């Protein structure tokens, strides 16, 4: 029950495209003592059905920029394979710190940025 509840809340955040994994992975590690790698795999796998339904709803609401999707996926696929192999084969402590730094800066930027705030939704 707790597990499904954690899933539910991370699903809400994930469905909004805010990052369900940033909630799901630490919750699993903290509440259930799941191993980091396993928690990451749970996030990746459970994202598949979650994203599928979310995409259907976003498509209906005309929120998906279809002409950007293909180009972003093209090399993204290669990145995904490289990243996953690195993740399962080594301990990426240093990379993790770099990424944390990036997240912190981007998070602050998201909160404070006024850029394109008034942009009309087309």
């Amino acid at each position, binding site marked *: 029950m707790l*597990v*499904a509840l954690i899933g539910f*809340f*991370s*699903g*809400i955040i*994930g*469905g*909004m*495209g*805010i*990052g*369900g994994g940033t909630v*799901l992975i630490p919750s699993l590690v903290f509440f259930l003592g799941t191993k980091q790698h*396993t928690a*990451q*795999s*749970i996030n*990746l*796998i*459970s*994202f*598949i059905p979650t994203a*599928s*339904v*979310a995409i259907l*709803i*976003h498509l209906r*609401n005309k929120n*998906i920029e279809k002409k*950007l999707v293909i*180009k*972003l*996926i093209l090399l993204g*696929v*290669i*990145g995904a*394979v*490289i*990243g*996953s*192999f*690195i*993740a*399962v084969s080594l301990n990426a402590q240093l990379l*993790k710190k770099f*990424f*944390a*730094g*990036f*997240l912190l800066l*981007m*998070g602050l*930027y*998201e*909160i404070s940025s006024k850029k*394109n*705030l008034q*942009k009309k939704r*087309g």
Partner: protein
Amino acid sequence: MLSFAIFTRINITIFVKINTKYREFIGDSMKKSKFTAKLLLIGFITGLINGLFGSGGGTVLVPCLVFLMDVEDHKAHATAIAIILPLSILSSIIYYSYNVVDIALTENVAIGSVLGGIVGSMLLNKLPVNILRKFFGVIMIIAAVRMVI
């Protein structure tokens, strides 16, 4: 003499017109290829981060789309999901082949997260941009703090 002058004049005008058209064409295609190059690079980094940390693709992709590609916030969030889905499928296969998965636990999480996903994607349109950015920013900062602890 006069007719020659007129002829040259017309000739020059035509030449100038063609030249500007040509320049516009070259300019457009250069802009377009720069645009594509940016998209390809952003996609690559997104895939790398998402595979490496098992999440976080969106935290790279959404700000890039909003601040570099001028995509509207709501659309950036929704589009990010469509891009991360195939990347997650690939990464899942690799994680699965390395035997780090827990199927039973994944099933339980997935049941909850599918329901949450429906709620979340319907909520997205209801949130104004400034609230969406604050929410997104706070989640990113929490994730950052947790990563170094």
